[in-house]
């Protein structure tokens, strides 16, 4: 992979020759494995609560876990069969083992009878549709897995003018959005129309990267066929991270989402193309989110391709569907070449956030030399899409200077890895920033706890002093007055 700093209006990098593109055939459905493991992990480290018991028979689309505090959306059985275990398992992107529901597939795909489509969504209220979307377990499929109904929920103070359907897959290698737009553009547009109805926005922009001509053509044809004047296609230049929500909004509308704010604050709601298609399926067939498109790529797998995969499918099964590993596989990565995480083994299961699996060989990976001192060349700052000064952040991270880190905006770092990729000194910038940000969070909590303990200690000491004084005073009062002269 070759990395150069992106030129032009936007900050970022150009990635050339990264993990090979998966074959351009229509995405086919992967076979359902004999056993699945639905992970209950949520991105914030908490987990869903199971609502089925071991041994219970579950049908396709039946709710198996939910979130009592509404932090996440329900999870549904992606096959029919028996729950054989509820146990702790490794989960993609989690440092600890997380609970998972294991289902033995009976191969019959018996549907939950409770799944009913919506005949004419235009007759339904936004609230009803939002409740449906929540019950359908739909989350952002671009990778963040933020519950879609929360993102779409109306907020009176910030009306939504524009809905952006994000089809910018800027991380090289990932191709599931590309495939979806090529072969299911109509379904995606239907989902977009449903969302337009919900948020009451006047227009919808479907953003596609310039290096995906087939997807652009297919989407344009579908837009024409839909005959909906609210829909339009916008072409975004090819650079990384063009698909980042904030970067995309900056490119499309020239406005920046305020720090700590949401795209809504500038009248925009962003949704991934996969999410739009999932909403279409939900409305048309009543089927909740039980499968998603996953790209399997890299030189380490025999036949790279994009597949429709049931949630909970083990990665090993997925790799087999693609012809198995090639001999020179060196690393398994979930996610793209830039933001992906290396996986310890392939017994992990596909989750709602799993958009890509890279079976990387040495040729796919960027070789990393030894880290040299920072020469202050400024390349990192030139590439940083958040307009930070990574060299200063790095200096303060090494010095553990929390105030300095905060001053140079560590919390605004989106951990995209652009700085890291262009640094001529090969400094491990992103990983240092990730660690520093987590440490800063820990330190903030610690400081809060310390301040509280200090206050309580002072209060305690003061109270004891007052009590002591009081006791002395009473002691004195009880003494007979005459004894004072002795």
């Amino acid at each position, binding site marked *: 992979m070759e990395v150069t700093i992106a030129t032009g209006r936007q900050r970022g990098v150009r990635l050339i020759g990264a993990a090979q593109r998966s074959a351009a055939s229509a995405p086919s459905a992967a076979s359902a494995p004999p056993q699945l493991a639905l992970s209950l992990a949520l991105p914030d480290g908490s987990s869903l609560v199971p609502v089925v018991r071991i041994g219970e028979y579950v049908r396709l689309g039946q709710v198996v876990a939910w979130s009592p505090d509404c932090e996440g959306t329900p999870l549904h059985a992606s096959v029919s069969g028996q729950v054989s275990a509820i146990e702790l398992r490794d989960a993609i992107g*989690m*440092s600890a083992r997380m609970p998972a529901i294991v289902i033995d597939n009976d191969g019959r795909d018996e549907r939950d009878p409770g799944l009913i489509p919506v005949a004419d969504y235009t007759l339904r209220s936004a609230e009803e549709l939002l409740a449906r979307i929540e019950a359908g377990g739909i989350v952002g499929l671009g990778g963040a897995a933020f519950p879609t109904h929360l993102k779409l929920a109306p907020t009176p103070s910030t009306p939504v003018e524009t809905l952006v359907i994000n089809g910018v897959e800027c991380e090289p290698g990932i191709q599931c959005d590309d495939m979806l737009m090529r072969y299911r553009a109509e379904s995606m547009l239907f989902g977009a129309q449903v969302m337009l109805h919900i948020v009451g926005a006047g227009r919808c922009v479907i953003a596609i990267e310039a290096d995906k001509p087939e997807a652009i053509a297919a989407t344009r044809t579908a837009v024409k066929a839909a005959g909906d004047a609210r829909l339009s296609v916008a072409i975004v230049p090819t650079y990384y991270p063009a698909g980042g929500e904030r970067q995309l909004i900056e490119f499309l509308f020239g406005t920046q989402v305020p720090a700590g704010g949401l795209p809504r604050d500038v009248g925009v709601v962003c949704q991934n193309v996969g999410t739009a298609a999932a909403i279409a399926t939900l409305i048309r067939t009543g089927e909740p989110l039980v499968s998603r498109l996953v790209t399997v790529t890299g030189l380490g797998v025999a036949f790279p391709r994009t597949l429709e995969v049931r949630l909970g499918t083990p990665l090993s099964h997925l790799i087999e569907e693609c012809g198995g590993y090639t001999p020179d596989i060196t690393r398994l990565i979930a996610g793209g070449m830039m933001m992906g995480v290396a996986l310890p083994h392939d017994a992990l299961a596909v989750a709602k956030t799993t958009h890509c699996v890279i079976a990387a060989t040495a040729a796919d990976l960027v070789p990393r030399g030894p880290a040299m001192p920072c020469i202050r060349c400024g390349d990192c700052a030139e590439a940083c899409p958040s307009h930070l000064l990574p060299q200063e952040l790095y200096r303060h991270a090494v010095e553990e200077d929390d105030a300095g880190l905060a001053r140079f905006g560590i919390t605004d770092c989106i951990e995209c890895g652009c700085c890291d990729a262009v640094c001529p000194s090969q400094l491990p910038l992103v990983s240092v920033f990730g660690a520093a940000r987590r440490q800063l969070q820990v330190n903030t909590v610690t400081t809060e*706890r*310390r301040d509280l*303990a200090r206050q309580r200690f002072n209060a*305690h000491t003061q109270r004891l002093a007052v009590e002591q004084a009081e006791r002395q005073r009473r002691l004195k009062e009880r003494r007979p007055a005459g004894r004072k002269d002795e």
Partner: protein
Amino acid sequence: MPPVVLLSGAAFVLALLGAWVMQRRSPGEQNDEQTLIDQVDALLPQTQCGQCTFTGCRPYATAMVRGEADINQCPPGGHATAARLARLLERPSKPVDPVFGDPLAPPLVAYILEELCIGCARCLPACPVDAILGAARFTHTVIAADCTGCKLCIAPCPVDCIEMRPVVHLAAPH
């Protein structure tokens, strides 16, 4: 002649500019004793356990600033805190002296076995941060969020119904 005036004038203006910027960016540093004690206190873990031989963190901070105590006496802070104290007070850095306690002990929180508690209220005044809730003849309990894990409540309890448990964390995302 004009060049001299010009150059020294420029230097003077630049110096003023520099002074102004420095002043604007870093608020005046008052290095009196109280400020220093505050800074030292901010580094201490506020467990208030007394392992340092002082009655709490602030008394220890005061003693350090006055040169009456060394920087390696706080086990809950661990070696990292000792190193930071050494840097702030410009003293030689050294690891925590195990005489005062185990610097590697994991964070703990007190837990009262409520079925055993006799409600004697002896643990109440012992807690330096008033983290124990209760009144005479009622079962007592520890507010886990406020407990610093100082263990000072253990000794006074006549029925040994207080135990220290490890702090539970949520699994962190990768």
